[in-house]
């Protein structure tokens, strides 16, 4: 009797514990399924891609969006070794990709790239961004170049033309400011606090910009101070919108509260959300160099990589999808859906305003591309830089103390790599 009571208690205990454990385990581990669990941080509408992929591959997407970048990164890093790992996810190239690759968490896509390059689907310069130790990882959903978006109505009102040199751009800014219009959009924190550092630094000395990001130069170098002083002068003249404002950039742009906004060629999809149309409402021009590099204007480039989890349940389908994503048909679909520029030269571009801009900045005789700061800086340095640049733009003053603070993190990081 006692023994039976005892046994009953154990059974109950075991059942409860098993129940609890059961709750936390993954119940949807159906391998061979063609619905890919896709985790992303952009907030875009992927339905057109999912529909098209289902038609041609029998693979569709179940999208989960993380709008907070910090939470997104924490989730991906924490989940990749667990059964909760997404099949595919968006990520960043550069240091952040290297971190995942060094842990063997993303699937090798070298064979996909080989085919894509052979078919002339993508340029080898893009392949370089996805290469770590001679192998390729992830594929680009899109490749974006940074330009300056401008509000056409405002430019027309004050008789301004898109500038072709840095001083022309500052002249435009002065005119706008004199009419009470804020010339440039700016926002603090993660992610956009880096933008004007990047534009002034790469715009004055591209070699120094690259050397810093590779740990071969210092944020305390005089070249950096010089670039930051360009930014400081613009801040002191009141050329920027309130960096602490939480109003979305597209709303600021539409309301005419900032006439120019530097962003990548992914931005039209966001502008479309507030009903702003290319050509009539907005235009885009390449951001002029402050000092040209060997006669060329530097253009920031970024990609939106889509990565496959190394040990994901649907790895085969995810790789098949990755290959398809680079194809002319997928790129045409995506270009149409987002109003952006496809990187695949065989795909159909949806938007003529961007097409002209794309042709312009990919002209290797006049422009030279560099990796956007957000991807180029190592993760801990980026975090410190975003904090310090936020401090700098909130209380514009001598940049030296901020640069020293970033450099201390940078020195520490590069010392740990040796």
């Amino acid at each position, binding site marked *: 009797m*006692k023994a039976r*009571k*005892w046994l009953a*208690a*154990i059974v*109950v*205990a075991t059942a*409860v*514990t098993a129940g*609890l454990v059961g709750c936390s385990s993954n119940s949807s581990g159906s391998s061979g399924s063609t619905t890919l669990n896709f985790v992303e941080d952009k907030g875009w509408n992927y339905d057109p891609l999912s529909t098209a992929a289902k038609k041609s591959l029998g693979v569709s997407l179940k999208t989960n969006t993380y709008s907070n970048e*910090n*939470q997104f*990164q*924490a989730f991906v*890093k*924490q989940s990749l070794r667990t059964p909760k790992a997404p099949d595919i996810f968006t990520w960043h190239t550069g240091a952040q990709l290297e*971190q*995942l690759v*060094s*842990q063997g*968490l993303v699937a090798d896509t070298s064979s996909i790239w080989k085919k894509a390059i052979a078919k002339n689907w993508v340029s080898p310069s893009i392949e370089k961004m996805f290469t770590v130790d001679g192998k390729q990882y992830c594929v680009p959903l899109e490749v974006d170049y940074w330009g300056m978006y401008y509000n056409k109505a405002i430019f027309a009102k004050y008789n301004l033309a898109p500038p072709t040199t840095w001083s022309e751009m500052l002249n435009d800014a002065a005119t706008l400011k004199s009419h009470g219009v804020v010339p440039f959009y700016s926002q*603090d*924190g*993660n992610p956009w606090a880096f933008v004007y550092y990047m534009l002034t630094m790469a715009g004055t000395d591209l070699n120094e910009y690259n050397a810093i990001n590779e740990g071969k130069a210092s944020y305390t170098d005089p070249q950096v101070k010089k670039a930051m002083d360009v930014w400081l002068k613009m801040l002191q003249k009141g050329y920027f919108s*309130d960096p*602490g*404002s*939480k109003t979305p950039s597209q709303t600021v742009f539409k309301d005419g509260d900032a006439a120019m906004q530097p962003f990548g060629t992914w931005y039209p999809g966001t502008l479309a959300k507030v009903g702003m149309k290319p050509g009539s409402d907005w235009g885009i021009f390449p951001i002029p160099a402050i000092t040209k590099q060997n006669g060329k204007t530097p253009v920031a480039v970024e990609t939106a990589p889509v990565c496959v989890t190394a040990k994901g349940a649907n790895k085969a389908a995810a790789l098949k999808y990755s290959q398809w994503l680079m194809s002319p048909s997928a790129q045409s679909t995506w270009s149409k859906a987002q109003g952006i520029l496809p990187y695949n030269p065989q795909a159909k571009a949806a938007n003529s305003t961007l097409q002209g801009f794309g042709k312009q900045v990919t002209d290797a005789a006049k422009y030279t591309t560099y990796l956007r700061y957000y991807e180029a800086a190592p*993760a*801990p340095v980026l*975090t410190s830089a975003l*904090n*310090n640049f*936020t*401090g700098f733009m*909130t*209380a514009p003053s001598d940049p030296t103390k901020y640069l020293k603070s970033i450099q201390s993190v940078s020195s520490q990081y590069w010392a740990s790599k040796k």
Partner: protein
Amino acid sequence: MHSKSNGYQRSAWAFMGPGVALVLLAMYIPVVYTMYLSLTDYNGLDTPQFVGLQNYVTMFSDPSFLMSLLNTAIWVVGTLIVPVGVGLLVAYLSFGLKWASLFRIPFLIPYALSGVAIGVVFNFILQNGGALSQAMAFFHLPGADTHWLEVAPLNTIVMILASSWQGIGVNALLFIVGLQSIPKEPLEAARIDGANGLRLFTTMIWPLLRPSTTIVVGLSIVNSLKTFDIVETMTQGGPNRISETLGVTMYSDTFQNSQYGLGAAVAIFLTIVTVAASVLYLRRQLAIGDSSGSGKVAEA
């Protein structure tokens, strides 16, 4: 007899087992694991390497941690002055009034909101060019272009005021319960002896209110030490980490900077400070105070 008791014990343990296991699993193991992490250089991806007390050394030499420590101290003092002080005032002034409960409702309602909701609402009011600045500009008041959330320690102070808006009501409620439990006779006697107003309050009511004060102040210290939600929603600890509290520093070191070891060290430090503050404070209070409030305090 012996075997019966033994069997009873065993089945009792078997029934308690799941509960104990759950507490171990959900509370003790994470604490031990956090202690372990605080001694490693874990970055969320690589295998953690043991680094001894390095994270604690880094932590105390990190200016943003020291700033966060200072801000947390401001939070503790600020929440003692405003929500506790005003809570007491509301309770005392409304006590015994005819429509007191109606008068107290507006103070109590914000307590039903979450900290995040408060953060969102006050962010709307206090952001640059927000509702407050617009209102001040409309009335031509000076300081309409103040950047409330960008300058230290102003940003911490306005966030304390925002959280006070929520905290006053529940403190007042606790004080009212305390006031109601004060026996009438000694107060009557004091009044007959001529004690009135401030004198009556300081010599009679305040000492008799001690059990409630102990609870309110104890809760206030612990809650302010672990302030997180309102700061995270209003400033995210920024700009440039100048409005972080220890809770926010712990979060941003861990999840934003991927320094899990350092974040764990901050967590352990925060835990030690919170436990030490509660123990020291309650010990002192319980040693002086009567027994009527002690049970509740221990639970709190």
